[in-house]
C-alpha cells in the first residue's frame, strides 16, 4: 500500500489479523520518505512483512515511471535500514523452487541445500554425480516477493491506465468502484503481465476498453474460489483475501479511489488449495 496512506490503510486490512505496532508504523513513515528521496522513486509502497522463525522481514517496494516494469524491492529488519533485493531472474526462480522448503528462517545468509543424484553413463557402470544446488535466503525472499506480485497482486478496474506508448500509470480520475461493482470479482484485475487477454472472445472484448482492461481478471483464476471477497469494518471496506497465498489482503473503499494490498504471512504458497475449497 502506498506510504502516503499507511496510517489509515493498516486499520482497514487489520481484519486479517496482523497489524504493525505504532513504533513500526512511525519508523516506516520516516524511512520510506528517505528511501524515496535516495532512490528517486515516484512512489514508495510498503509491500508487507514476511514472518520467519527467528526474525521477520519488512518489505518495501519503489515504483518508477512505469508502474509494472520499474519496480525495486527492499527489505529491512527494523524498518529503518533497508537493503536492496536483486530482481528475480528465471534461473534463480528455478533454483529456489527446487531447494527452498519449509518456513523462512529469518537470516538472509542462511543457505538451503538440495542434493540431486544424477546417473550418467550405462546401466551398471553408472557414474553417480551429486548435483548440489544452494540458494541463500535472500534470493528466496526476492523470488517469493516476485511470485506473490505475479500471482496475487490486485488492483480495481480503472485504477491504472495503459498509455499508447505502453506505459502503465495511475489513473488520476479514478473515482472508485460503486457498491454494486465492488461486489463482483470481475472488476478486479491482476497487476502483472496479462496472460489470458488473447483468449477472450470478440463478444467479451466488445465491452472492454483497451486502456483500462489490459490485465487479467481475477475471476479467471484457476481454481475458482481461490479469492475470498468480504465486507469488513462495519461493511464499509471491501476486502479480498487470497487463498493461494494466505496473508495477502487487498482493500478498497467503494466510491473512493483508495485501494491497496499488503502481504503479511510466512511466504509459503498454499499448494493444498484444491483440497481445501
Amino acid at each position: 500500500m502506498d506510504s502516503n496512506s499507511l496510517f489509515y490503510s493498516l486499520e482497514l486490512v487489520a481484519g486479517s489479523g496482523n497489524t504493525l505496532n505504532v513504533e513500526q508504523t512511525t519508523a516506516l513513515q520516516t524511512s520510506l520518505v528517505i528511501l524515496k528521496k535516495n532512490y528517486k522513486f515516484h512512489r514508495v509502497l510498503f509491500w508487507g512483512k514476511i514472518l520467519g522463525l527467528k526474525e521477520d522481514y519488512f518489505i518495501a517496494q519503489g515504483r518508477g515511471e512505469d508502474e509494472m516494469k520499474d519496480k525495486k524491492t527492499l527489505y529491512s529488519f527494523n524498518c529503518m535500514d533497508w537493503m536492496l533485493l536483486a530482481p528475480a531472474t528465471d534461473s534463480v526462480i528455478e533454483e529456489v523452487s527446487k531447494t527452498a522448503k519449509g518456513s523462512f528462517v529469518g537470516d538472509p545468509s542462511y543457505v538451503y541445500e538440495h542434493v540431486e543424484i544424477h546417473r550418467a553413463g550405462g546401466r551398471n557402470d553408472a557414474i553417480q554425480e551429486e548435483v548440489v544446488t544452494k540458494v541463500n535466503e535472500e534470493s528466496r525472499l526476492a523470488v517469493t516477493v516476485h511470485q506473490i506480485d505475479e500471482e496475487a497482486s490486485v488492483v480495481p478496474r480503472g485504477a491504472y491506465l495503459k498509455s499508447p506508448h505502453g506505459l502503465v500509470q495511475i489513473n488520476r480520475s479514478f473515482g472508485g468502484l460503486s457498491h454494486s461493482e465492488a461486489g463482483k470479482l470481475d472488476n478486479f484485475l491482476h497487476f502483472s503481465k496479462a496472460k489470458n487477454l488473447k483468449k477472450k472472445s470478440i463478444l467479451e472484448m466488445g465491452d472492454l476498453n483497451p486502456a483500462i482492461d489490459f490485465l487479467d481478471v481475477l475471476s479467471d483464476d484457476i481454481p475458482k474460489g481461490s479469492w475470498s471477497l468480504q465486507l469488513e469494518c462495519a461493511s464499509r471496506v471491501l476486502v479480498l483475501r487470497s487463498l493461494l497465498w494466505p496473508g495477502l489482503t487487498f482493500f478498497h473503499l467503494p466510491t473512493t479511489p483508495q485501494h491497496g494490498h499488503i502481504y503479511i504471512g510466512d511466504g509459503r504458497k498454499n499448494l493444498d488449495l484444491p483440497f481445501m475449497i
Partner: protein
Amino acid sequence: MESTDGNDAKSEQRLKSAAVLKSFMLKSSTESKLNLYDHLSRVLMKVMDEHPDNAVDVIEDVSREVKRGLFEDKQSTLRDLPQTTAAELLAEQQRLLFSRPEEADQEEELMDTPLPNVNEVAFYLEQAGVGLGREEMQRVFLALKQLVESQGLPRCRLWGKILGTESSYIVAEAEYREGEEEEESTEEAAEDEERDVEKEMNPLPQSAYKPPPTVPKEALGTGANKFAFYVCKEPGLPWVKLPSVSPAQITGARQIRKFFTGTLDTPIVSYPHFPGNEANYLRAQIARISAGTQVSPQGFYQAGEEEGDEEDEAPRDSFEVNPDFEGVPVAEMAESLSTWVHHVQHILQQGRCTWVNLAVKPGDDSNEEGEGEEKEEEPDEPEPEVGPPLLTPLSQDAEMLNIPPWTSKMSSVLTSQHALAVLRSNLWPGAYSYASGKKFENIYVGWGLKYSGEGFSQAVPPLPQKEYPSGPEITEALDPSVEEEQVLKEALEEEQAAQEEKDDTDDPEEEDDD
C-alpha cells in the same frame, strides 16, 4: 487547382469533425434527459433576449436558470428508491451495541465483571502486532458485553477470529452457567423410536457387522468441553452457541484440511467423512487450537487441590489463579520458553483429554455381554494414552515438522523497558500470546488450520477386506481331463496287479520256510 483541392479537403475535414461534435452534443444525458446542444442553444437565446450586464460573468447563473425552468416540466412521477447498502443495514444493527442500559447500577459495575479490561487488551495486542484494528476491536468488545448480558455468563473473553471464504467468525469463549446440561439427548431418543417401529414391520436380515465402539463425549465443563464457545459473523449480529465437541469430531478434524465458508450449517464434503457440519468442524478446530496454544506465564496459575493419590490416572484438570504471582521480567519471558506453561489440557490421540478404556464394556447391553467377557480375556489390553500434564512449560513442546513450535520476541527494541513479550505459534499460524508483568492474554486470528509442513496428503481409502483366508480346501484346481483320468486309471491298475503278484510270491515263500 491543387490549393483549392487542399482547401476543399480541409474544409471537408472540418465539416466532418463539426458533424461528429454536433452528434456528440446531441446525445442525451442519462440522468436528466437533456442534451448539451439544446441546452447551449437555449442559454444563448436567453442571453440574446435579456442582454444581461457582464454576461460572461453571470453565464453560469443563466445556465442554471434555464435548467431549473425546464425541470418543472419534466418531473417524473416515479421516484428512485434509495438502495440500502450493506453498510447501512449493518449500521442499524450495530447501533444497538452503543445503547446503554437504563437501569445500570453503578455498584455492580465496580465488582468483578465477567469481561477483562477490553481497552487495555486491545492496546497490548496492537503493540504485539496482532488484532483487528482499533475500531473493530472496540465493536467486538461491545458485542461481547451484549453477549454476557443476554446469556448471563459468569465469565467470558474474546478467543479470536477465524477467517472464512465468504465471511468470518468472531469467537468468544465463556464458562458454562451452573446447571447447564446437554440438550441433544431428546433428539436421539426420537430417532431410536422411529427405527424400532420400522424393524417390527419389516424384519430384514441383520448384518453381523458391529461398528467399533464410539468414544464417549466428555461432560460439559471438563476436558475439551471445558468452555462454551459462541460465534457471530459481525459484531452486532446475534451470537450463536456452538455444540459441544465429540472425540470422533476431533479425530476427524485431524485428518481433513478444509477452509471455513462462514455459514454454520454447510456440510463438510471430505474424505474421510467428517461426522458433522461446519459448526462441529469449527468447534473441533477451536478445541485443538486451544489445547495447543493457550499459554500463560509460569506461576500465574497453580494446580488446584488434588483429590486422592498421585497415582490415579485422571490428570489434574483444575487450576486456580495464584495470588502470590509476582510477574516475570519481560526480557526473560521473551528469551526462554520455560517461563510459559500451557493451561489447557492436551487432547490425546483418542480425541479426549482423559483416556477411556474402550475394551472394558459395561454390563448394561444385554446383546454384548457375552462378547464383552470374551474380550476381557484377551491378554493385551490397549495401553492407556497419556498426555503431558497440565501446566507443563513450553520448552517441553516437541519440535514437529522440522520447525520450532514457538517464536518469541519483544514487541519493541527501542523502548524495551515497557515492551511486551510476544509469543507466536509456528504450528498454528495465527495464535499469539503476550505477557507484561502480571497481564497476559492469548488470541487467535487466522484460518483455523495447522501448519502442514511439506504438504497435505489426503488419506487413502483402506484396502478391500479379505472375505476368508485362502487355503487348500477352497482354492480352485482344474478338473483332470479324460486322458489324464485314463492314464491315472491304468497306472492304478498296474500297481494293483503288481501288488497282487507280490502278495502271491510272498505267500509261497512263507510256506517254503516252514
